[in-house]
């Protein structure tokens, strides 16, 4: 059954591209229709859960070879199923949600195409069993998320945010490619399953540090870890469905997935452990801290995502079985509540027109269902029973306490982050939903009754799932223990429980909640304090700093380009000739007596002599002629002479081409000559002498090089091969043509492309002048 997974993945990509066809047919129903595709994957994965036992692993070998030894293989195990379920499930809900959310947008077709491709790339990423394919999908998510974040491209802010996220995650992607190649070189294969089963010792390899550094950069950029975190709050410029998807199950979680996937190969070293713990702790605390000071609901949520990602990286860094278990559960928890809350933010935005939590108020009555499930999600975010968030948070605490030596740093910061979460959840609840607060009731454009079911289905389903799993977390046991088996390579039984009995951890939770309430009560003072800090930090505002660096870079590049590309054709030619002459002068043999042709001298041919005579005379005439037309005709004569020389040596194709090109050039010349300014001597004596010297040098050098070419034979000439195989292998008797279209077809392809570019260049140049004339009223 699961074997049809690659097919469904392919279908997802196809559906993405087919949006072009679907959109005119379905219009507003497009999102609903497209939601079928992720739903199919979700159902397939859901049905396959029953096959999963603790040491389950299935590798589906692809038949298509993309590059040498790179197959499209898929890997199904607990880890990829957990990720796949969340990606396809939330993807399904997001598509439903988006089909109403986006209804008034223009370019909906574009939006759904990007979204589907994003979804497909992300799903393929977590199932890919090949490092290179994993990289390809990784980059594809970066590119599609760039398009999605910058969807409102008429806004400067969106464009900037999109560019930032692309540059940062793209940079990380390149690092990932580098690391993948290194891993592949060391292991001899790119198949993840093979690398793991080979048990290659990466950890003691001299290049381990480099590989780890590259993977680290890839993860830190993709998962928005400090100091690369700043692109994620900017990314909320995207339409809300995208934010909901980006934050909950995709994109930023790709980094988490990569760490878990590579842990068996690269993990369990001091370097791995401490680097990840350090970056995770900082990100976790900073994210939670900054989310307190925000007003925009989406921005608050974006910062809590950063905090959650930090927690996950930290847990992976700790690396004990319990902490990995906690990572898995926390990933599910986070995906469920964050997706739901973002969708709620979008619903509120649609029905009231604002996302400022201090303007919004008393939404419980107009939006009852949404509010109930949003509050459930908030409870999950705060980590309170009976939601899955509680289970996750307890596990996180256990994992943090467990770590000897470092728990004195991690635990306070972790509890601190949790306190903030509780406070934020309470703040959002009181400011937005609480019906008894003495704030003016906000005006509602769309009360809940007017919203279609599929628009509010997302948060409801996600929160309900979270509640269900919170009451009965045992349903996740086998999946998580299989994921643990994959990442830790040892069999561990997982027993998730909502209530572990009264212990140290519960005490910590109670402490965190109590302090959270306290922070909430004094939030005004604390917010003011945070604002001070944010203002102080704004001096080093990372996005601006990043843009500054980028702009400086562009400025320098611009200056350099204008210095090199000055636009004077004569100086281009001079530079080119002089450099060539100097390089050639170092290479040629100056002992001219050694330059004897290898094939011996051929007897002097009277026709040849005549041609050379004519050519020389024409050259002299062209140089000294006082009329432009006659100079051009003399040049034409030289061209024809060369064509005839080819003919004398039996190169018929070459000669025909030369004659024809000469003719066409002549025709074009004659066409424009009438319009050129008068032929006059404008250059000074000095520059003419300089030009003469350069051209004499060029002529001398070219002659010397030609003589050399005749006298030296470094490799066996390839013409013999062409002559032998032209008819036998390529079915052609005209060797020149066979070379052009068969043996060296790639060169020809390149040449045709270059020709096209030349034509486009000429066309646009002339267009430009024509338009300028029209604009000037001529």
């Amino acid at each position, binding site marked *: 059954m699961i074997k049809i997974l690659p097919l469904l993945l392919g279908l997802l990509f196809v559906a993405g591209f087919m949006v072009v066809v679907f959109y005119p047919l379905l219009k507003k129903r497009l999102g609903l229709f497209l939601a079928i595709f992720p739903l199919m994957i979700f159902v397939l994965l859901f049905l396959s859960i029953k096959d999963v036992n603790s040491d389950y692993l299935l590798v589906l070998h692809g038949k298509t070879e993309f590059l040498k030894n790179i197959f499209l293989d898929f890997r199904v195990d607990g880890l990829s199923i957990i990720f796949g379920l969340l990606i396809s499930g939330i993807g399904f809900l997001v598509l439903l949600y988006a089909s109403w959310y986006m209804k008034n947008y223009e370019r909906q077709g574009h939006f759904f195409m990007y979204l589907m491709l994003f979804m497909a790339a992300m799903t393929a990423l977590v199932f890919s069993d090949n490092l290179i394919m994993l990289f390809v999908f990784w980059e594809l998510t970066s590119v599609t998320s760039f398009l999605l974040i910058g969807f409102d491209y008429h806004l400067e802010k969106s464009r900037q945010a999109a560019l930032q996220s692309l540059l940062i995650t793209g940079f990380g992607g390149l690092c990932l490619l580098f690391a993948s190649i290194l891993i592949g070189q060391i292991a001899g294969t790119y198949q993840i399953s093979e690398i793991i089963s080979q048990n290659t010792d990466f950890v003691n390899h001299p290049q381990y540090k480099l590989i780890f550094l590259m993977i680290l950069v890839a993860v830190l950029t993709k998962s928005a870890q400090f100091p690369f975190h700043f692109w994620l709050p900017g990314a909320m410029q995207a339409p809300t469905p995208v934010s909901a998807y980006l934050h909950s199950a995709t994109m930023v979680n790709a980094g988490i997935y990569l760490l878990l996937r590579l842990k068996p190969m690269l993990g369990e070293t001091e370097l791995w452990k401490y680097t990840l713990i350090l970056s995770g702790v900082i990100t976790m605390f900073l994210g939670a801290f900054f989310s307190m000071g925000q007003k925009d609901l989406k921005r608050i949520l974006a910062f809590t995502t950063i905090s959650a990602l930090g927690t996950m990286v930290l847990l992976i860094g700790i690396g004990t079985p319990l902490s990995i278990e906690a990572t898995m559960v926390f990933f599910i928890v986070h995906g469920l509540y964050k997706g739901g809350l973002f969708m709620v933010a979008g619903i509120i935005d649609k029905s009231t027109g604002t996302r400022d939590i201090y303007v919004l108020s008393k939404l419980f009555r107009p939006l009852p269902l949404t509010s109930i499930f949003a509050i459930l999600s908030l409870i999950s975010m705060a980590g309170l029973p009976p939601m899955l968030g509680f289970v996750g948070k307890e596990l996180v605490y256990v994992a943090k306490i467990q770590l000897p030596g470092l728990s004195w740093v991690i635990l306070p910061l972790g509890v601190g982050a949790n306190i903030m979460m509780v406070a934020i959840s309470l703040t959002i609840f009181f400011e937005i939903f609480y019906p008894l607060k003495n704030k003016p009731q906000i005006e509602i454009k769309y009360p809940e009754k007017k919203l279609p079911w599929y628009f509010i289905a997302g948060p409801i389903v996600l929160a309900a799932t979270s509640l269900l799993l919170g009451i009965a977390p045992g349903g996740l046991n086998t999946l998580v223990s299989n994921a643990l088996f994959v990442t830790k390579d040892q069999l561990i039984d997982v027993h998730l429980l909502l209530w572990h009995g009264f212990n140290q951890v519960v005490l910590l939770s109670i402490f965190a909640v109590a302090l959270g309430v306290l922070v909430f009560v004094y939030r005004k003072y604390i917010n003011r304090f945070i604002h001070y800090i944010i203002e102080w930090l704004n001096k080093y505002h990372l996005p601006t700093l990043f843009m500054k660096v980028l702009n400086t870079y562009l400025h320098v590049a611009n200056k350099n380009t204008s210095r090199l590309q000055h636009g004077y054709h004569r100086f281009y030619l001079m530079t080119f000739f002089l450099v060539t002459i100097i390089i050639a002068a170092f290479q040629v043999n100056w002992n001219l007596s050694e330059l004897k042709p290898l094939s011996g001298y051929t007897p002097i041919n009277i026709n040849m002599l005549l041609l050379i005579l004519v050519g020389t005379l024409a050259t002299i005439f062209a140089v000294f002629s006082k009329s432009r037309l006659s100079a051009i005709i003399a040049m034409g004569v030289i061209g024809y002479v060369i064509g005839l020389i080819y003919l004398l040596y039996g190169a018929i194709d070459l000669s025909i*081409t030369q004659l024809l090109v000469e003719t066409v050039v002549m025709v074009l010349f004659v*066409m424009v000559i009438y319009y050129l300014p008068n032929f006059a001597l404008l250059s000074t004596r000095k520059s003419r002498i300089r030009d003469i010297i350069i051209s004499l040098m060029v002529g001398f050098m070219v002659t010397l090089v030609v003589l050399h070419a005749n006298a030296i034979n470094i490799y066996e000439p390839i013409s013999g091969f062409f002559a032998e195989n032209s008819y036998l292998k390529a079915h052609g008797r005209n060797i020149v043509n*066979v070379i052009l279209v068969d043996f060296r077809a790639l060169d020809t392809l390149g040449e045709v492309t270059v020709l096209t570019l030349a*034509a486009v260049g*000429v066309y646009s140049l002339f267009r430009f002048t024509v338009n300028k004339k029209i604009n000037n009223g001529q």
Partner: protein
Amino acid sequence: MDNNIRNIILEKVVQLFLKIMLIYSVYLLLRGHNNPGGGFIAGIIASTGFIFYAMIYGTEKIKKLMFFSSRQWIGFGLMFVFISAIIPLFFTKEILTGVWINVEHSITGAIHLGTPLLFDTGVYFSVTGVILTIAISIMEVLKWN
């Protein structure tokens, strides 16, 4: 050039010239694999015919005559080239490898038809398109009508 002055002899000659050139270029294209000729040469010859036609009749007329704009012909050419490059992939061969079909016929004998011919046709179209794009651009700027 003034539109009022018409040179009927020149017009007729150019019409004939264009037809001959086109037929001759197709002939050169088809025989290119075994005898002197080929897509590049054929392309230049065809475009020469068109240029002379355009010089007499003006660029508007030539645009109508070509069905598509010269830039679109470049596009067709490139498309042919890429298609012929990709076809071998479906026969589990490397990109750009020639794929051949043998056509047996009582009169002509065995003819080898293959992707190189398609490739050459692509070259033919794009070369024609390139030269004509350049020539027509120049003519339009000079207001050659």
